[in-house]
């Protein structure tokens, strides 16, 4: 007898989405003067709200508001007072956790299980963690009295909208900077709700400004001469453009860019745990994760058995309504991203790889892509080389630890990697040789505000989180 899951949808009643949103500048919602755009629910393609676009004058207004707040209020404020504002924000994020989680899942398409258990608690934790740094910066190893930079221009992606906001705003504010943040155009709603949280916290006007829009707005922000610090999370391609535009300006720059992480499974690994780690590594958040374990490297002797178990596990993944608490894999964030995933997967087939997905019914409306694994691939296949940013895994094999390391490092990226082995010395040997900023051993996709995150090579530079992350927002 087969027990079916009953639907377990989270109620939408807890969120109140307005018909239209303006720009949050100087503590007020104001009109934008570019062409407004619509944010849609990727699970059913319904329009959620109309969002203002900030043009050059709007971005200028936001940067000036941030500068004024920096000069008059936030810069001179003692660290212990800044700390209390950040603690307040952390508490309000916890108080409004359900509302934020539901809104995030509606706007982004990610399963409520993830927004509820990962995104929102971690966002609150980031504010709580950094609050405590605000009055202890002299102990962080950057001199006795490290100074803030000024106005930070921050551009964040659509895969973890609220969490990336927290990664950017919490350290910036703790170090004494003010910010102008641009959320991604497909996922602006939790950032706009965060504006309301700033107001509830009585955060001084202008300390946090949110400008919405597409790439042009982001470019106007990072190129604005009033911005002293640029922080960007997104694609390597755009990261390069930003690095070029910042050349010669003296702006401080941190970039958290793409990845193509190897997840190495040795022959002594606990296979069931490794399978869970592989699934978590690539199907968490529909694979819209820069540090996703998108290249499985499995030792040849156990490859068949591991892939059998992996496919059996993939067949149990539940794809569908992001608001259903039983859902494992939600909607692809946008039609554009779905098209990119489809195109690259098609290339995989054209190049001779063997494509497999579990039998699963995808909803008719919305943007969906079944969890997919490619086998019979080599290092030169595009699905192995390029960041797909979707639920697509490529499985390769290796014979010796040296080969595993060589293959893992054979990419311009260097953001993350995984290792599965029961042997401690082998784990440490491998971790030492992987050219990646985060190495998960016998686990994957773990994040914490106390743990520095960021890449080697073309995955960008600078770290976010931990003591190391403070450097990005201090004039050192």
């Amino acid at each position, binding site marked *: 007898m087969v027990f079916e899951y009953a639907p377990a949808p989270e109620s939408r009643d807890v969120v109140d989405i307005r018909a239209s949103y303006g720009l949050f500048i100087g503590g007020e919602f104001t009109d934008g003067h570019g062409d407004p755009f619509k944010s849609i629910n990727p699970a059913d393609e319904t329009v959620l709200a109309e969002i203002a676009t900030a043009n050059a004058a709007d971005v200028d207004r936001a940067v000036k508001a941030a500068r004024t707040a920096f000069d008059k209020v936030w810069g001179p404020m003692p660290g212990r007072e800044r700390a209390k504002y950040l603690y307040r924000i952390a508490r309000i994020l916890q108080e409004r956790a359900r509302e934020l989680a539901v809104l995030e899942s509606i706007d982004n398409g990610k399963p409520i299980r993830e927004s509820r258990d990962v995104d929102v608690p971690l966002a609150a934790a980031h504010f709580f963690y950094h609050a405590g740094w605000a009055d202890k910066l002299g102990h962080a190893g950057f001199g006795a009295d490290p100074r803030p930079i000024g106005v930070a221009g921050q551009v964040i992606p659509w895969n973890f909208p609220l969490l990336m906001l927290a990664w950017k705003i919490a350290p910036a504010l703790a170090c004494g900077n003010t910010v102008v943040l641009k959320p991604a155009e497909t996922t602006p709603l939790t950032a706009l709700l965060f504006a309301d949280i700033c107001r509830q916290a009585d955060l001084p006007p202008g300390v946090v400004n949110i400008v919405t829009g597409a790439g042009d707005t982001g470019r106007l922000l990072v190129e604005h001469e009033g911005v002293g610090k640029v922080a960007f999370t997104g694609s390597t391609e755009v990261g390069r453009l930003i690095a070029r535009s910042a*050349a010669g300006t003296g702006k401080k720059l941190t*970039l958290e860019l793409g990845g193509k992480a190897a997840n190495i499974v040795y022959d002594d690994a606990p296979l069931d745990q490794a399978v869970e780690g592989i699934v978590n590594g690539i199907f968490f958040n529909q694979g819209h994760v820069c540090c996703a374990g998108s290249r499985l490297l499995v030792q040849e002797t156990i490859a068949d058995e591991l892939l059998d178990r992996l496919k059996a596990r993939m067949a149990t993944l539940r794809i569908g309504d992001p608001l259903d608490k039983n859902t494992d894999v939600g909607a692809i964030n946008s039609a554009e991203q779905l098209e990119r995933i489809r195109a690259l997967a098609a290339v995989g087939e054209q190049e001779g790889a063997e494509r497999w997905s579990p039998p699963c019914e995808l909803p008719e409306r919305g943007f969906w892509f079944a969890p997919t694994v490619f086998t019979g691939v080599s290092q030169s296949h595009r699905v192995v080389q390029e960041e797909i940013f979707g639920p697509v895994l490529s499985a390769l094999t290796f014979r010796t630890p040296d080969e595993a390391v060589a293959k893992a490092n054979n990419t311009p990226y260097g953001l993350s990697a995984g290792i599965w082995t029961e042997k401690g010395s082998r784990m440490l040997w491998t*971790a030492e040789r992987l050219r990646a900023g985060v190495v998960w051993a016998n*686990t994957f996709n*773990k994040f914490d505000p106390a743990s*520095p995150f960021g890449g080697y*090579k073309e995955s960008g*530079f600078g*770290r976010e989180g931990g003591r190391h992350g403070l450097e990005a927002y201090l004039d050192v």
Partner: protein
Amino acid sequence: MSDRLAVRKTYKLFIGGAFPRSESGRSYVVTDAKGRFVANASHASRKDARDAVTAARKAFGGWSGRTAYNRGQILYRVAEVLEGRAAQFVDELRQTGVTKPQAVAQVDAAIDRWVWYAGWADKLAAVAGSANPVSGPFFNFSTPEPTGVVAVVAPDSPLLGLVSVVAPAIVSGNTAVVVASEPAPLPAVTLAEVLATSDLPGGVVNILTGRRAELAPWLASHMDVNALDLAGVGADAVAALEEAAAGNLKRVVRPGDIDWADEPGTARMTAFLETKTVWHPVGV
């Protein structure tokens, strides 16, 4: 005065532990402060720069894989050999127009600077790394690692400035391609002779003499260079080099108004470090 004719030194490049001439066959005249001929220095080409990067990349695995203690010992050995060559450096510095006491002071400072950096090798990880208290049953630690091949455009302070940019790049395990001071390259070549006889593996430091404006753009755009120190670059050339460096997202240290005699701090070392964070579950 002796009738003996002095045996002059041929100043060559230092690539992969060897002293080749420029593959281009070019040289340029180095003069003293009064404009008198001192020597013909090699005028390195783009090809020499690329060869130097290849040598540096080849040396990276071995050098970064040494224990920190071993790197510290080798760097200290460099200081020992520098000390023995002090008189030669004093002579070369005097040719650039400084008085003998000034030259002696600079050589002493350069040797002491090298000793200072040598001692950092086995302390950086303790100062720049951390055990991180994550909220879950995980052991989580961050360690600094060298970023890879660092291209260094050395400042015009021909010895103290030079060692102040080379030592911090290599002490952590990076390898370096160094463009020496253009008007005063000779101490750099003599430093290369010191490095070649100090147990420093070939290719860890590679030294090019020639035109900065010609060499720096190739290094800035080279896809197998991980980081760029622009210490000796004029303000007008920074933007273009930074832009070229964006091609593979190099870590860039911009030129600053630096007195090389000042206590350096750790920033030049940490600029060429990556932070690696490793997670492992805790359980039985």
